[in-house]
């Protein structure tokens, strides 16, 4: 097992290196004058000379890449041109929104998708199955932002003034606030990395409000999350339901399931204890694969629901041509994606002993 993990780690290193290089290369192939692309057409020569020296753009490309690597190794992602703030600071502020949204969307997809797939498989070709698969097909075909707008239309406009009405944008209602952890725990003097971590966790409103018992804020944050989480979670839900169905159908046809039935076990126990457990491995694979799509979908969901997360920041950086922010954010998301996939890969090793031998 240890050898398996080490081998997977070693394979990841060149991929991470390639990732960094690709992000670096993308920022250097910007056509035309990089200074005027960033600072605008009217920047004077003197300002531009200064800009080029400050960002090391007068050095040869390999030296620039070396400088960039050195910068990264110190945990420095550069400084945003528009905000004049370090990119890491922006990340601590904006990433929690995205993490929270992604986690809730994935939970929604798993909690609804797996039972739906199981139900479809055991009631194969029944109206329930056909209905579920029609919904699943529609779910994977609808863009996140279209579904998001539809949901807003239904729950914020048509159902307005009913108990089912849900907020269409933002993270909290006006006047509601989640007190940051450093304030609740009286640690305002804290600085550096521990402070960064605490601030990051504080940004995940539903989690920080839960552990500090801010119930009213928790309820409000949760209500704001329902529509975006459904919009973002529907595509993975559809995929998870389909995979669960086909995987369970395959397992239900195997001999040991027949043996279990022949022993006189209750159907419920055959399906849940014997079949579903073995059918879930491909589902785990798919859940891992969905994370990348979820990160990308979060970009669209955030701009649809007006949430100031990574996606919105990226969106603003694109319109404002803030290359340092684009580079830093995309790098972080891609690294997160690679790490998550590594974890998923290693977890198969635990779930399925056959994989370790390969």
């Amino acid at each position, binding site marked *: 097992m240890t050898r398996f993990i080490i081998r997977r780690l070693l394979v990841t290193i060149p991929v991470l290196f390639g990732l960094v290089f690709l992000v670096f290369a993308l920022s250097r192939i910007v056509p035309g004058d990089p200074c005027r692309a960033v600072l605008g057409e009217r920047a004077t020569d003197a300002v531009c000379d200064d800009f080029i020296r400050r960002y090391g753009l007068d050095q040869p490309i390999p030296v620039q890449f070396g400088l960039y690597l050195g910068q990264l190794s110190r945990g420095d992602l550069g400084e945003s041109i528009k905000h004049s703030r370090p990119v890491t600071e922006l990340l601590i502020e904006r990433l929690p929104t995205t993490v929270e949204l992604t986690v809730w969307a994935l939970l929604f997809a798993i909690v609804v998708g797996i039972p739906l797939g199981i139900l479809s498989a055991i009631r194969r070709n029944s109206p329930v199955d056909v209905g579920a698969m029609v919904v699943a097909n529609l779910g994977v075909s609808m*863009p996140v*932002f279209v579904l998001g707008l539809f949901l807003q239309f239904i729950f914020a406009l048509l159902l307005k003034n009913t108990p089912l009405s849900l907020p269409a944008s933002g993270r909290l209602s006006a006047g509601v606030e989640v007190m940051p952890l450093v304030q609740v725990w009286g640690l305002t003097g804290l600085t550096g990395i521990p402070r960064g971590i605490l601030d990051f966790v504080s940004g995940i409103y539903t989690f920080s409000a839960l552990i500090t018992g801010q119930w009213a804020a928790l309820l409000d944050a949760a209500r704001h999350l329902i529509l975006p989480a459904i919009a973002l979670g529907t595509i993975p839900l559809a995929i998870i339901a389909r995979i669960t169905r086909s995987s369970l159908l395959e397992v239900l046809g195997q001999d040991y399931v027949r043996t279990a039935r022949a022993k006189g076990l209750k159907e419920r126990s055959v399906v849940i204890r014997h079949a579903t457990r073995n059918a879930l491995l491909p589902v785990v694979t798919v859940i891992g694969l969905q994370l990348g799509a979820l*990160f*990308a979908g979060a970009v669209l969901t955030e701009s649809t629901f007006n949430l100031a997360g990574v996606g919105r920041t990226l969106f603003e950086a694109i319109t404002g041509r803030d290359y340092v922010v*684009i580079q830093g954010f*995309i790098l972080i998301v891609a690294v997160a994606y690679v790490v998550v996939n590594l974890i998923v890969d290693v977890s198969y090793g635990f779930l399925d002993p056959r994989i370790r031998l390969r």
Partner: protein
Amino acid sequence: MTATSEPLGPGAGLPAGTPGVSAPALPADTLARTRPASLWRDTIANILRQRSADLGLLILGLLILVALFAPIIAPFDPNKPLLGVEQGLIKRAPPCVHLLGCPAAKPEHIFGVDGNFRDVFSRVVWGARTSLSIGFAAIGFAIVVGSIIGGLAGYLGGWIDNILMRLMDVILAFPSLLLAIAIVTAAGQSLTNALLAIGIVSVPIYARVMRSSVLSVRESDFVTASRALGESGFGIMTRRILPNSLTPLVVQGTLGIGGAVLEIAALSFVGVTGDLSRPEWGSMISIESQQLFNAPHVILAPGLAITLTVLGFNLLGDGLRDALDPRLNR
């Protein structure tokens, strides 16, 4: 591909999906009159037997007709505002369909009018052209480049294989939409660059598919035989290996076009495809996304168009996979 690899027994002419049909001992003359199994006829019959493929073909057939005949179907110019042309026209006027009780005196706008006084239906119709052609072009590009890369990697092996496939891993390490956004912002915001970006991020999928089919047939006897007969490496690639990789490429490609249509809409929605005033579904939603509460029709119409198109490709792709993948013929 599947039909030829099966032994042509007496039951070969029967549909593959009929289980338990044991071939009765037929007299010799009956056998002679049975039409011989043909690869293409079997394949098409197999595809048409899939209900999802039929539905997908129907949807896509209609969409392709709409795209081809857009100038005839669309009642108005998709780009020209109707302000001043049409009397009493209201900005973002809701749909007016004569059959549904809209007074016949008013001009018909079945999907309503948008924020620039343009007929939404005409724009949706013209949008089919944009979306379908970009989808086909982007995935066509990805299939060609991907097959070359995957073919070289699989056929040559060794360090070339290693370098090419690690490069593909790096591209796959990014969420594809984010990488596409990054490429478009670096290369310049335009629809052409968006098309290329979607093509580039899709390349690794086809490279992987191609490489695995090359690996699976490279050592087979018929390839060894061609090599012994003195066929060149290029000939073996194009005449022996490529035909064997077509099935997975076509299945993956069909699903891929659906994905590309979603991605191009997303890139337009984010606003990196340049001019947002052209009749393109994602741009139409992007421009009017703030108008959801007072004029939902300007968003619903293009939104449903995207969904229908992607649904068509997904259904067809699923049907093709079920019909063509021999492993699924249980």
